[in-house]
Protein backbone atom coordinates (compact mmCIF):
# COMPACT_ATOMS: atom_id res chain seq x y z
CA UNK A 1 0.00 0.00 0.00
CA UNK A 2 1.30 3.42 -0.84
CA UNK A 3 0.22 6.91 0.00
CA UNK A 4 0.25 10.03 -2.13
CA UNK A 5 1.90 13.36 -1.52
CA UNK A 6 0.91 16.22 -3.78
CA UNK A 7 2.26 19.72 -3.87
CA UNK A 8 1.46 21.64 -7.00
CA UNK A 9 1.43 25.14 -8.33
CA UNK A 10 -0.25 25.51 -11.73
CA UNK A 11 -0.32 29.19 -12.61
CA UNK A 12 -2.48 28.95 -15.74
CA UNK A 13 -5.30 27.36 -13.68
CA UNK A 14 -4.59 29.40 -10.53
CA UNK A 15 -4.03 26.22 -8.52
CA UNK A 16 -1.80 26.06 -5.46
CA UNK A 17 -2.50 22.92 -3.45
CA UNK A 18 -0.76 20.69 -1.00
CA UNK A 19 -2.28 17.52 0.41
CA UNK A 20 -1.47 13.94 1.23
CA UNK A 21 -3.35 10.68 1.11
CA UNK A 22 -2.30 8.12 3.70
CA UNK A 23 -1.71 4.54 2.51
CA UNK A 24 -5.04 2.79 2.08
CA UNK A 25 -7.02 5.95 2.67
CA UNK A 26 -9.90 7.34 0.58
CA UNK A 27 -9.63 11.11 0.37
CA UNK A 28 -12.63 13.09 -0.83
CA UNK A 29 -11.90 16.37 -2.62
CA UNK A 30 -14.80 18.80 -2.44
CA UNK A 31 -15.19 22.25 -3.89
CA UNK A 32 -17.24 24.44 -6.19
CA UNK A 33 -16.96 24.00 -9.96
CA UNK A 34 -13.74 25.40 -11.34
CA UNK A 35 -11.95 25.20 -7.99
CA UNK A 36 -9.21 23.07 -9.56
CA UNK A 37 -10.24 19.64 -8.30
CA UNK A 38 -9.78 17.91 -11.67
CA UNK A 39 -6.56 19.78 -12.33
CA UNK A 40 -5.16 18.48 -9.06
CA UNK A 41 -6.00 14.92 -10.14
CA UNK A 42 -4.44 15.55 -13.54
CA UNK A 43 -1.22 16.64 -11.87
CA UNK A 44 -1.12 13.35 -9.94
CA UNK A 45 -1.83 11.40 -13.14
CA UNK A 46 0.89 13.30 -15.01
CA UNK A 47 -1.51 14.83 -17.53
CA UNK A 48 -0.74 18.35 -16.34
CA UNK A 49 2.78 19.40 -15.56
CA UNK A 50 2.86 21.77 -12.58
CA UNK A 51 4.90 24.97 -12.78
CA UNK A 52 6.41 23.88 -9.53
CA UNK A 53 5.68 21.09 -7.12
CA UNK A 54 6.08 17.41 -6.58
CA UNK A 55 4.09 14.21 -6.68
CA UNK A 56 5.14 11.18 -4.68
CA UNK A 57 3.37 7.83 -4.65
CA UNK A 58 4.77 5.47 -2.02
CA UNK A 59 8.51 5.71 -2.34
CA UNK A 60 8.45 6.76 -5.98
CA UNK A 61 8.84 10.37 -7.07
CA UNK A 62 6.62 10.90 -10.11
CA UNK A 63 7.00 14.65 -10.49
CA UNK A 64 9.60 16.95 -9.00
CA UNK A 65 9.93 20.31 -10.67
CA UNK A 66 13.21 21.20 -8.92
CA UNK A 67 14.89 17.94 -9.97
CA UNK A 68 13.21 18.07 -13.40
CA UNK A 69 11.52 14.71 -12.88
CA UNK A 70 8.29 14.03 -14.76
CA UNK A 71 7.40 10.36 -15.14
CA UNK A 72 5.15 9.72 -18.14
CA UNK A 73 1.51 8.92 -17.43
CA UNK A 74 1.82 5.33 -18.65
CA UNK A 75 4.62 4.58 -16.16
CA UNK A 76 2.91 6.05 -13.09
CA UNK A 77 0.59 3.24 -12.01
CA UNK A 78 -2.02 5.86 -11.23
CA UNK A 79 -5.52 4.93 -12.38
CA UNK A 80 -8.06 7.55 -13.43
CA UNK A 81 -11.81 7.03 -13.63
CA UNK A 82 -13.73 9.95 -15.07
CA UNK A 83 -17.37 10.90 -15.31
CA UNK A 84 -17.36 9.64 -18.91
CA UNK A 85 -16.53 5.90 -18.79
CA UNK A 86 -14.66 6.19 -22.12
CA UNK A 87 -14.77 2.47 -22.89
CA UNK A 88 -12.97 1.75 -26.16
CA UNK A 89 -15.87 1.44 -28.61
CA UNK A 90 -14.08 -1.04 -30.89
CA UNK A 91 -13.45 -3.57 -28.10
CA UNK A 92 -15.86 -5.82 -26.23
CA UNK A 93 -16.36 -5.33 -22.51
CA UNK A 94 -14.01 -8.22 -21.70
CA UNK A 95 -11.39 -6.89 -24.11
CA UNK A 96 -11.67 -3.43 -22.56
CA UNK A 97 -10.93 -4.80 -19.11
CA UNK A 98 -8.21 -7.07 -20.48
CA UNK A 99 -6.63 -3.98 -22.06
CA UNK A 100 -6.21 -2.58 -18.56
CA UNK A 101 -4.76 -5.81 -17.23
CA UNK A 102 -2.38 -6.20 -20.15
CA UNK A 103 -1.19 -2.60 -20.25
CA UNK A 104 -0.87 -2.13 -16.52
CA UNK A 105 0.81 -5.39 -15.61
CA UNK A 106 2.50 -6.34 -18.88
CA UNK A 107 0.60 -9.61 -18.66
CA UNK A 108 0.25 -12.15 -21.45
CA UNK A 109 -2.97 -12.27 -23.44
CA UNK A 110 -4.19 -15.32 -21.56
CA UNK A 111 -3.32 -14.07 -18.07
CA UNK A 112 -4.94 -10.71 -18.77
CA UNK A 113 -8.14 -12.47 -19.83
CA UNK A 114 -8.27 -14.22 -16.46
CA UNK A 115 -7.62 -10.95 -14.60
CA UNK A 116 -10.36 -9.28 -16.64
CA UNK A 117 -12.84 -12.04 -15.76
CA UNK A 118 -11.97 -11.63 -12.08
CA UNK A 119 -12.55 -7.87 -12.04
CA UNK A 120 -15.72 -8.08 -14.10
CA UNK A 121 -17.09 -10.43 -11.44
CA UNK A 122 -15.97 -8.01 -8.72
CA UNK A 123 -18.06 -5.20 -10.21
CA UNK A 124 -21.06 -7.47 -10.91
CA UNK A 125 -20.60 -7.23 -14.67
CA UNK A 126 -19.50 -10.78 -15.56
CA UNK A 127 -22.62 -11.29 -17.66
CA UNK A 128 -21.75 -8.28 -19.83
CA UNK A 129 -18.37 -9.64 -20.95
CA UNK A 130 -19.24 -10.21 -24.60
CA UNK A 131 -21.14 -6.99 -25.19
CA UNK A 132 -19.89 -3.97 -27.08
CA UNK A 133 -19.79 -0.76 -24.99
CA UNK A 134 -22.57 0.84 -27.03
CA UNK A 135 -24.95 -1.84 -25.74
CA UNK A 136 -24.36 -0.85 -22.09
CA UNK A 137 -26.34 1.50 -19.88
CA UNK A 138 -24.54 4.37 -18.15
CA UNK A 139 -24.22 2.53 -14.86
CA UNK A 140 -23.01 -0.68 -16.50
CA UNK A 141 -20.42 1.22 -18.55
CA UNK A 142 -19.13 2.96 -15.43
CA UNK A 143 -18.80 -0.36 -13.58
CA UNK A 144 -16.86 -1.81 -16.51
CA UNK A 145 -14.65 1.28 -16.61
CA UNK A 146 -13.94 0.75 -12.90
CA UNK A 147 -13.06 -2.90 -13.56
CA UNK A 148 -10.73 -1.80 -16.36
CA UNK A 149 -9.00 0.75 -14.13
CA UNK A 150 -8.58 -1.80 -11.33
CA UNK A 151 -7.37 -4.51 -13.70
CA UNK A 152 -4.37 -2.30 -14.46
CA UNK A 153 -3.56 -2.67 -10.75
CA UNK A 154 -2.86 1.00 -10.01
CA UNK A 155 -1.19 1.96 -6.75
CA UNK A 156 -3.52 4.94 -6.52
CA UNK A 157 -6.96 5.31 -8.02
CA UNK A 158 -8.23 8.78 -8.92
CA UNK A 159 -12.00 9.06 -9.21
CA UNK A 160 -13.21 12.23 -10.91
CA UNK A 161 -16.96 12.42 -10.22
CA UNK A 162 -17.53 8.82 -11.33
CA UNK A 163 -21.13 8.79 -10.07
CA UNK A 164 -22.26 12.11 -11.51
CA UNK A 165 -24.94 11.69 -14.13
CA UNK A 166 -26.05 8.23 -13.00
CA UNK A 167 -29.59 7.52 -11.80
CA UNK A 168 -30.00 7.46 -8.03
CA UNK A 169 -30.50 3.68 -7.87
CA UNK A 170 -27.64 3.02 -10.30
CA UNK A 171 -25.35 5.35 -8.38
CA UNK A 172 -26.20 3.51 -5.17
CA UNK A 173 -25.22 0.18 -6.73
CA UNK A 174 -21.98 1.67 -8.07
CA UNK A 175 -21.27 3.20 -4.66
CA UNK A 176 -21.62 -0.23 -3.07
CA UNK A 177 -19.14 -1.64 -5.60
CA UNK A 178 -16.70 1.22 -4.93
CA UNK A 179 -17.01 0.71 -1.22
CA UNK A 180 -16.20 -2.96 -1.67
CA UNK A 181 -13.15 -2.51 -3.90
CA UNK A 182 -11.74 0.62 -2.26
CA UNK A 183 -12.45 0.20 1.43
CA UNK A 184 -11.92 -3.58 1.50
CA UNK A 185 -8.70 -3.62 -0.52
CA UNK A 186 -7.28 -0.59 1.25
CA UNK A 187 -6.35 1.04 -2.03
CA UNK A 188 -5.35 4.70 -1.72
CA UNK A 189 -7.74 6.79 -3.71
CA UNK A 190 -8.74 10.35 -4.31
CA UNK A 191 -12.42 10.94 -4.96
CA UNK A 192 -13.74 14.16 -6.42
CA UNK A 193 -17.45 14.43 -5.78
CA UNK A 194 -20.41 16.75 -5.26
CA UNK A 195 -22.46 14.15 -3.41
CA UNK A 196 -22.71 14.05 0.38
CA UNK A 197 -23.53 10.32 0.24
CA UNK A 198 -20.25 9.54 -1.54
CA UNK A 199 -18.35 11.35 1.17
CA UNK A 200 -20.19 9.72 4.03
CA UNK A 201 -19.98 6.20 2.63
CA UNK A 202 -16.54 6.22 1.03
CA UNK A 203 -14.20 8.87 2.36
CA UNK A 204 -11.89 8.65 5.37
CA UNK A 205 -10.79 12.23 5.05
CA UNK A 206 -11.97 15.35 3.25
CA UNK A 207 -10.13 18.19 1.58
CA UNK A 208 -12.07 21.28 0.53
CA UNK A 209 -10.70 23.21 -2.43
CA UNK A 210 -11.89 26.74 -3.13
CA UNK A 211 -10.48 28.94 -5.89
CA UNK A 212 -7.45 26.70 -6.26
CA UNK A 213 -6.52 26.69 -2.54
CA UNK A 214 -7.13 24.12 0.19
CA UNK A 215 -9.50 25.88 2.60
CA UNK A 216 -10.14 22.95 4.86
CA UNK A 217 -9.03 19.41 5.50
CA UNK A 218 -9.77 16.85 8.14
CA UNK A 219 -11.48 13.58 8.96
CA UNK A 220 -14.84 13.20 7.22
CA UNK A 221 -16.91 13.27 10.41
CA UNK A 222 -15.18 16.42 11.68
CA UNK A 223 -15.61 18.31 8.42
CA UNK A 224 -19.23 17.33 8.02
CA UNK A 225 -20.26 18.16 11.58
CA UNK A 226 -18.03 21.17 12.18
CA UNK A 227 -17.00 22.62 8.83
CA UNK A 228 -14.57 25.55 8.86
CA UNK A 229 -14.95 26.62 5.25
CA UNK A 230 -17.92 28.18 3.47
CA UNK A 231 -18.08 25.40 0.93
CA UNK A 232 -17.70 22.70 3.56
CA UNK A 233 -20.60 24.23 5.48
CA UNK A 234 -22.77 24.56 2.40
CA UNK A 235 -21.91 21.00 1.44
CA UNK A 236 -22.84 19.65 4.84
CA UNK A 237 -25.97 21.82 4.89
CA UNK A 238 -24.78 23.79 7.92
CA UNK A 239 -24.72 27.55 8.46
CA UNK A 240 -21.32 29.13 8.88
CA UNK A 241 -20.34 32.64 9.95
CA UNK A 242 -16.76 33.88 9.72
CA UNK A 243 -15.30 36.24 12.27
CA UNK A 244 -12.93 36.68 15.18
CA UNK A 245 -13.21 35.46 18.71
CA UNK A 246 -14.90 38.02 20.98
CA UNK A 247 -15.40 38.12 24.74
CA UNK A 248 -17.67 35.75 26.71
CA UNK A 249 -17.94 32.95 24.18
CA UNK A 250 -18.80 35.19 21.29
CA UNK A 251 -17.76 35.58 17.73
CA UNK A 252 -17.61 39.04 16.20
CA UNK A 253 -17.93 39.32 12.45
CA UNK A 254 -16.14 41.79 10.22
CA UNK A 255 -19.36 43.82 10.10
CA UNK A 256 -19.66 43.90 13.94
CA UNK A 257 -22.34 41.28 14.30
CA UNK A 258 -22.02 39.35 17.58
CA UNK A 259 -22.84 35.64 17.80
CA UNK A 260 -23.18 33.95 21.18
CA UNK A 261 -22.34 30.29 21.25
CA UNK A 262 -20.52 27.41 22.83
CA UNK A 263 -16.76 27.46 22.54
CA UNK A 264 -15.07 24.45 21.06
CA UNK A 265 -12.05 24.24 23.46
CA UNK A 266 -8.53 25.31 22.69
CA UNK A 267 -9.39 28.74 21.33
CA UNK A 268 -6.99 31.59 21.78
CA UNK A 269 -7.99 34.77 19.96
CA UNK A 270 -7.65 34.99 16.19
CA UNK A 271 -9.98 33.82 13.46
CA UNK A 272 -12.98 31.70 14.29
CA UNK A 273 -16.14 30.34 12.71
CA UNK A 274 -19.58 29.90 14.21
CA UNK A 275 -21.67 27.01 12.90
CA UNK A 276 -25.29 26.01 13.49
CA UNK A 277 -27.84 23.83 11.81
CA UNK A 278 -30.62 25.40 9.70
CA UNK A 279 -33.26 23.60 11.80
CA UNK A 280 -32.05 25.53 14.86
CA UNK A 281 -33.00 28.81 13.20
CA UNK A 282 -36.37 30.42 13.86
CA UNK A 283 -37.82 33.03 11.53
CA UNK A 284 -39.80 36.13 12.56
CA UNK A 285 -41.31 39.02 10.65
CA UNK A 286 -40.75 41.43 13.55
CA UNK A 287 -37.76 41.63 15.82
CA UNK A 288 -38.37 39.24 18.74
CA UNK A 289 -37.67 40.27 22.35
CA UNK A 290 -36.03 38.46 25.26
CA UNK A 291 -32.45 37.81 24.34
CA UNK A 292 -29.95 35.23 25.17
CA UNK A 293 -30.66 34.65 21.48
CA UNK A 294 -28.75 35.56 18.41
CA UNK A 295 -30.89 37.71 16.16
CA UNK A 296 -29.93 38.92 12.71
CA UNK A 297 -31.94 40.81 10.15
CA UNK A 298 -31.68 39.25 6.68
CA UNK A 299 -33.26 39.53 3.25
CA UNK A 300 -34.69 36.31 1.86
CA UNK A 301 -33.06 35.20 -1.37
CA UNK A 302 -35.01 32.04 -2.07
CA UNK A 303 -37.34 29.43 -0.65
CA UNK A 304 -36.78 25.76 -1.33
CA UNK A 305 -39.39 23.16 -0.52
CA UNK A 306 -37.76 19.97 -1.70
CA UNK A 307 -37.31 18.35 1.71
CA UNK A 308 -39.89 17.75 4.42
CA UNK A 309 -39.23 21.31 5.63
CA UNK A 310 -39.13 24.63 3.80
CA UNK A 311 -35.60 25.95 3.55
CA UNK A 312 -35.38 29.73 3.73
CA UNK A 313 -32.11 30.92 2.24
CA UNK A 314 -31.04 34.48 3.00
CA UNK A 315 -28.92 36.62 0.70
CA UNK A 316 -25.15 36.33 0.90
CA UNK A 317 -23.44 37.53 4.05
CA UNK A 318 -21.55 40.86 3.83
CA UNK A 319 -18.21 39.02 3.36
CA UNK A 320 -19.58 37.05 0.43
CA UNK A 321 -20.07 33.75 2.26
CA UNK A 322 -23.20 31.76 1.42
CA UNK A 323 -26.34 33.19 2.96
CA UNK A 324 -27.71 31.75 6.20
CA UNK A 325 -30.39 29.11 5.92
CA UNK A 326 -33.35 28.30 8.12
CA UNK A 327 -35.50 25.18 7.97
CA UNK A 328 -39.10 25.84 9.02
CA UNK A 329 -42.34 23.94 8.64
CA UNK A 330 -44.67 24.58 5.74
CA UNK A 331 -47.30 25.97 8.13
CA UNK A 332 -45.07 28.64 9.56
CA UNK A 333 -43.89 29.56 6.07
CA UNK A 334 -47.54 30.11 5.12
CA UNK A 335 -48.32 31.98 8.33
CA UNK A 336 -45.36 34.28 7.81
CA UNK A 337 -46.23 34.68 4.10
CA UNK A 338 -42.54 34.56 3.23
CA UNK A 339 -41.21 35.45 -0.18
CA UNK A 340 -37.92 36.40 -1.81
CA UNK A 341 -36.83 39.98 -1.18
CA UNK A 342 -38.59 40.15 2.16
CA UNK A 343 -36.83 41.39 5.31
CA UNK A 344 -37.09 38.96 8.24
CA UNK A 345 -35.28 38.13 11.47
CA UNK A 346 -33.38 34.88 11.99
CA UNK A 347 -32.87 33.87 15.61
CA UNK A 348 -30.76 31.06 17.01
CA UNK A 349 -30.35 29.95 20.63
CA UNK A 350 -26.80 30.38 21.80
CA UNK A 351 -26.51 26.73 22.85
CA UNK A 352 -27.20 25.76 19.22
CA UNK A 353 -24.22 27.75 17.97
CA UNK A 354 -20.75 26.25 18.24
CA UNK A 355 -17.65 28.35 17.77
CA UNK A 356 -14.49 26.74 16.36
CA UNK A 357 -11.05 28.06 15.57
CA UNK A 358 -10.80 28.83 11.85
CA UNK A 359 -8.22 26.90 9.93
Amino acid sequence: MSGVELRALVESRDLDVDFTVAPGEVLAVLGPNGAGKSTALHVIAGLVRPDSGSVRVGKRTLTDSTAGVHVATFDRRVGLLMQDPLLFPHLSVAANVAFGARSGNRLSRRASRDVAAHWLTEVDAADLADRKPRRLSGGQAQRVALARALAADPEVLLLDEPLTGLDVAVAAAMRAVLRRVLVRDGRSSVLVTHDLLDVVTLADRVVVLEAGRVTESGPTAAVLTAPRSSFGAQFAGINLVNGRLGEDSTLVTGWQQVWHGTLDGGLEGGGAVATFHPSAVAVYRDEPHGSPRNTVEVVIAELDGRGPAIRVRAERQPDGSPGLAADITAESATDLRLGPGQRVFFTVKSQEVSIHPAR
Partner: protein
Amino acid sequence: MAARVDWSRFWSLITSNSSLSALELSVKTAAASTALCILLGVPMAMVLARSQSRVIRWARPLILLPLVLPPVVGGIALLYAFGRLGLLGEYLEAAGIRIAFTTTAVVLAQTFVSLPFLVIALEGAARTAGSDFEVVAATLGARPTAVWWRVTLPLLAPGLASGAVLAFARALGEFGATLTFAGSREGVTRTLPLEIYLQREVDADAAVALSVLLVAVAAVVVIGLGSRRIKVGGASGWQ
Protein backbone atom coordinates in the same frame (compact mmCIF):
# COMPACT_ATOMS: atom_id res chain seq x y z
CA MET B 1 -24.01 7.27 -71.70
CA ALA B 2 -25.06 3.62 -71.41
CA ALA B 3 -27.50 4.22 -74.28
CA ARG B 4 -24.70 5.41 -76.53
CA VAL B 5 -22.59 2.33 -75.98
CA ASP B 6 -22.25 0.00 -78.92
CA TRP B 7 -22.91 -3.10 -76.78
CA SER B 8 -22.14 -5.55 -79.64
CA ARG B 9 -18.56 -4.26 -79.83
CA PHE B 10 -18.29 -3.43 -76.09
CA TRP B 11 -16.21 -6.43 -75.10
CA SER B 12 -13.75 -6.14 -77.98
CA LEU B 13 -13.44 -2.39 -77.41
CA ILE B 14 -12.51 -2.68 -73.77
CA THR B 15 -10.25 -5.68 -74.24
CA SER B 16 -8.10 -4.09 -76.90
CA ASN B 17 -4.42 -4.01 -76.02
CA SER B 18 -4.30 -0.27 -75.47
CA SER B 19 -7.42 -0.30 -73.29
CA LEU B 20 -6.21 -3.14 -71.15
CA SER B 21 -2.79 -1.63 -70.60
CA ALA B 22 -4.40 1.72 -69.73
CA LEU B 23 -6.75 0.04 -67.27
CA GLU B 24 -3.94 -1.93 -65.70
CA LEU B 25 -1.78 1.18 -65.41
CA SER B 26 -4.65 3.18 -63.91
CA VAL B 27 -5.43 0.61 -61.24
CA LYS B 28 -1.77 0.11 -60.37
CA THR B 29 -0.88 3.79 -60.17
CA ALA B 30 -4.06 4.66 -58.27
CA ALA B 31 -3.27 1.90 -55.76
CA ALA B 32 0.32 3.11 -55.43
CA SER B 33 -0.71 6.72 -54.96
CA THR B 34 -3.34 5.70 -52.39
CA ALA B 35 -0.61 3.90 -50.47
CA LEU B 36 1.59 6.99 -50.74
CA CYS B 37 -1.32 9.17 -49.59
CA ILE B 38 -1.77 6.98 -46.51
CA LEU B 39 1.94 7.12 -45.78
CA LEU B 40 2.07 10.92 -46.05
CA GLY B 41 -1.50 11.79 -45.11
CA VAL B 42 -1.88 9.92 -41.81
CA PRO B 43 0.91 11.85 -40.02
CA MET B 44 -0.28 15.09 -41.63
CA ALA B 45 -3.88 14.55 -40.54
CA MET B 46 -2.85 13.62 -37.00
CA VAL B 47 -0.69 16.72 -36.66
CA LEU B 48 -3.45 18.93 -38.10
CA ALA B 49 -6.02 17.44 -35.76
CA ARG B 50 -3.96 17.44 -32.58
CA SER B 51 -1.52 20.33 -32.78
CA GLN B 52 -2.39 23.67 -31.25
CA SER B 53 0.56 25.38 -32.91
CA ARG B 54 -0.01 28.48 -35.00
CA VAL B 55 2.43 27.32 -37.69
CA ILE B 56 0.34 24.18 -38.19
CA ARG B 57 -2.83 26.23 -38.48
CA TRP B 58 -1.20 28.26 -41.22
CA ALA B 59 0.05 25.11 -42.97
CA ARG B 60 -3.45 23.66 -43.23
CA PRO B 61 -4.62 25.69 -46.25
CA LEU B 62 -1.34 24.84 -47.97
CA ILE B 63 -1.96 21.12 -47.63
CA LEU B 64 -5.53 21.49 -48.82
CA LEU B 65 -4.62 23.78 -51.73
CA PRO B 66 -4.60 21.01 -54.40
CA LEU B 67 -8.29 20.53 -53.64
CA VAL B 68 -9.17 23.84 -55.26
CA LEU B 69 -6.26 24.15 -57.66
CA PRO B 70 -6.92 23.28 -61.33
CA PRO B 71 -5.11 19.94 -61.87
CA VAL B 72 -3.26 21.34 -64.89
CA VAL B 73 -1.76 24.01 -62.67
CA GLY B 74 -0.77 21.31 -60.22
CA GLY B 75 0.89 19.43 -63.05
CA ILE B 76 2.85 22.50 -64.08
CA ALA B 77 3.92 23.05 -60.48
CA LEU B 78 5.13 19.45 -60.30
CA LEU B 79 6.91 19.83 -63.61
CA TYR B 80 8.80 22.87 -62.36
CA ALA B 81 9.67 21.03 -59.16
CA PHE B 82 10.59 17.60 -60.52
CA GLY B 83 11.16 18.24 -64.24
CA ARG B 84 14.63 17.94 -65.77
CA LEU B 85 15.31 21.62 -65.21
CA GLY B 86 13.12 21.89 -62.13
CA LEU B 87 13.94 22.95 -58.61
CA LEU B 88 14.60 19.42 -57.34
CA GLY B 89 14.71 17.75 -60.76
CA GLU B 90 18.09 19.27 -61.51
CA TYR B 91 19.69 17.45 -58.59
CA LEU B 92 17.72 14.27 -59.23
CA GLU B 93 18.85 14.39 -62.85
CA ALA B 94 22.44 14.73 -61.70
CA ALA B 95 21.92 11.69 -59.49
CA GLY B 96 20.61 9.81 -62.49
CA ILE B 97 16.96 9.85 -61.42
CA ARG B 98 14.35 11.03 -63.91
CA ILE B 99 10.82 11.49 -62.75
CA ALA B 100 8.95 13.56 -65.31
CA PHE B 101 7.17 11.55 -68.01
CA THR B 102 7.58 8.24 -66.17
CA THR B 103 5.13 6.05 -64.27
CA THR B 104 6.53 7.56 -61.08
CA ALA B 105 5.34 10.95 -62.33
CA VAL B 106 1.83 9.53 -62.76
CA VAL B 107 1.85 8.32 -59.15
CA LEU B 108 3.19 11.68 -57.95
CA ALA B 109 0.57 13.65 -59.88
CA GLN B 110 -2.22 11.44 -58.57
CA THR B 111 -0.90 11.67 -55.01
CA PHE B 112 -0.71 15.45 -55.31
CA VAL B 113 -4.39 15.81 -56.18
CA SER B 114 -5.81 13.07 -53.96
CA LEU B 115 -3.83 13.68 -50.75
CA PRO B 116 -6.18 16.41 -49.47
CA PHE B 117 -9.15 14.03 -49.71
CA LEU B 118 -7.51 11.58 -47.34
CA VAL B 119 -6.20 14.28 -45.02
CA ILE B 120 -9.61 15.96 -44.70
CA ALA B 121 -11.49 12.73 -44.02
CA LEU B 122 -8.95 11.52 -41.47
CA GLU B 123 -8.51 14.88 -39.76
CA GLY B 124 -12.27 15.09 -39.27
CA ALA B 125 -12.29 11.59 -37.83
CA ALA B 126 -9.40 12.38 -35.49
CA ARG B 127 -11.06 15.56 -34.28
CA THR B 128 -14.35 13.79 -33.66
CA ALA B 129 -12.65 10.97 -31.78
CA GLY B 130 -10.69 13.45 -29.63
CA SER B 131 -7.79 12.38 -27.49
CA ASP B 132 -9.72 11.23 -24.41
CA PHE B 133 -9.42 7.56 -25.28
CA GLU B 134 -5.66 7.92 -25.62
CA VAL B 135 -5.46 9.63 -22.23
CA VAL B 136 -7.41 6.78 -20.65
CA ALA B 137 -5.17 4.21 -22.34
CA ALA B 138 -2.11 5.99 -20.94
CA THR B 139 -3.54 5.98 -17.40
CA LEU B 140 -4.01 2.23 -17.82
CA GLY B 141 -0.30 1.93 -18.48
CA ALA B 142 -0.27 1.57 -22.28
CA ARG B 143 2.85 2.91 -23.98
CA PRO B 144 2.47 5.37 -26.87
CA THR B 145 3.13 2.72 -29.55
CA ALA B 146 0.59 0.39 -27.98
CA VAL B 147 -1.88 3.27 -27.77
CA TRP B 148 -1.35 4.03 -31.45
CA TRP B 149 -1.86 0.46 -32.68
CA ARG B 150 -4.55 -0.66 -30.26
CA VAL B 151 -6.58 2.50 -29.66
CA THR B 152 -5.93 5.38 -32.05
CA LEU B 153 -5.70 3.44 -35.30
CA PRO B 154 -8.73 1.18 -34.70
CA LEU B 155 -10.78 4.23 -33.72
CA LEU B 156 -9.74 6.04 -36.87
CA ALA B 157 -10.14 3.01 -39.14
CA PRO B 158 -13.53 4.09 -40.53
CA GLY B 159 -12.19 7.58 -41.27
CA LEU B 160 -9.03 6.15 -42.78
CA ALA B 161 -11.03 3.75 -44.97
CA SER B 162 -13.31 6.48 -46.27
CA GLY B 163 -10.34 8.78 -46.86
CA ALA B 164 -8.48 6.05 -48.74
CA VAL B 165 -11.51 5.24 -50.90
CA LEU B 166 -11.94 8.91 -51.78
CA ALA B 167 -8.25 9.26 -52.55
CA PHE B 168 -8.28 6.13 -54.73
CA ALA B 169 -11.32 7.29 -56.65
CA ARG B 170 -9.79 10.72 -57.19
CA ALA B 171 -6.49 9.19 -58.32
CA LEU B 172 -8.30 6.90 -60.74
CA GLY B 173 -9.98 9.85 -62.43
CA GLU B 174 -6.92 12.11 -62.47
CA PHE B 175 -6.31 13.69 -65.88
CA GLY B 176 -4.90 17.23 -66.01
CA ALA B 177 -1.91 16.95 -63.71
CA THR B 178 -0.99 13.56 -65.18
CA LEU B 179 -1.07 14.81 -68.74
CA THR B 180 0.98 17.90 -67.90
CA PHE B 181 3.55 16.26 -65.69
CA ALA B 182 3.71 12.71 -67.08
CA GLY B 183 2.57 13.04 -70.64
CA SER B 184 0.77 10.28 -72.50
CA ARG B 185 3.03 7.35 -73.28
CA GLU B 186 1.16 4.13 -73.89
CA GLY B 187 1.78 1.57 -71.15
CA VAL B 188 3.95 4.02 -69.20
CA THR B 189 1.90 7.10 -68.39
CA ARG B 190 -1.29 6.74 -70.40
CA THR B 191 -3.93 6.03 -67.76
CA LEU B 192 -7.55 5.25 -68.53
CA PRO B 193 -8.80 8.88 -68.52
CA LEU B 194 -6.03 9.83 -70.95
CA GLU B 195 -6.85 6.84 -73.14
CA ILE B 196 -10.50 7.88 -73.18
CA TYR B 197 -9.59 11.40 -74.22
CA LEU B 198 -7.36 10.15 -77.04
CA GLN B 199 -9.84 7.55 -78.26
CA ARG B 200 -12.53 10.19 -78.48
CA GLU B 201 -10.65 11.75 -81.40
CA VAL B 202 -10.31 8.48 -83.27
CA ASP B 203 -13.11 6.20 -82.19
CA ALA B 204 -15.96 7.73 -80.22
CA ASP B 205 -17.50 4.31 -79.53
CA ALA B 206 -14.33 3.12 -77.85
CA ALA B 207 -14.23 6.28 -75.71
CA VAL B 208 -17.80 5.73 -74.53
CA ALA B 209 -17.13 2.06 -73.80
CA LEU B 210 -14.05 2.93 -71.76
CA SER B 211 -15.96 5.64 -69.92
CA VAL B 212 -18.55 3.08 -68.91
CA LEU B 213 -15.71 0.84 -67.76
CA LEU B 214 -14.26 3.65 -65.63
CA VAL B 215 -17.68 4.34 -64.14
CA ALA B 216 -17.98 0.64 -63.32
CA VAL B 217 -14.54 0.47 -61.71
CA ALA B 218 -15.19 3.61 -59.64
CA ALA B 219 -18.63 2.33 -58.62
CA VAL B 220 -17.19 -1.03 -57.54
CA VAL B 221 -14.57 0.69 -55.43
CA VAL B 222 -16.90 3.17 -53.81
CA ILE B 223 -19.81 0.80 -53.20
CA GLY B 224 -17.76 -2.27 -52.41
CA LEU B 225 -15.15 -0.75 -50.15
CA GLY B 226 -17.08 1.71 -48.22
CA SER B 227 -19.98 3.85 -49.30
CA ARG B 228 -21.25 3.06 -45.81
CA ARG B 229 -18.12 4.54 -44.40
CA ILE B 230 -17.77 7.60 -46.58
CA LYS B 231 -18.49 10.19 -44.02
CA VAL B 232 -16.42 12.44 -41.90
CA GLY B 233 -16.24 11.06 -38.40
CA GLY B 234 -14.09 8.49 -36.69
CA ALA B 235 -15.40 7.13 -33.44
CA SER B 236 -18.90 7.78 -34.69
CA GLY B 237 -18.21 5.09 -37.26
CA TRP B 238 -18.23 2.70 -34.32
CA GLN B 239 -21.45 3.83 -32.74
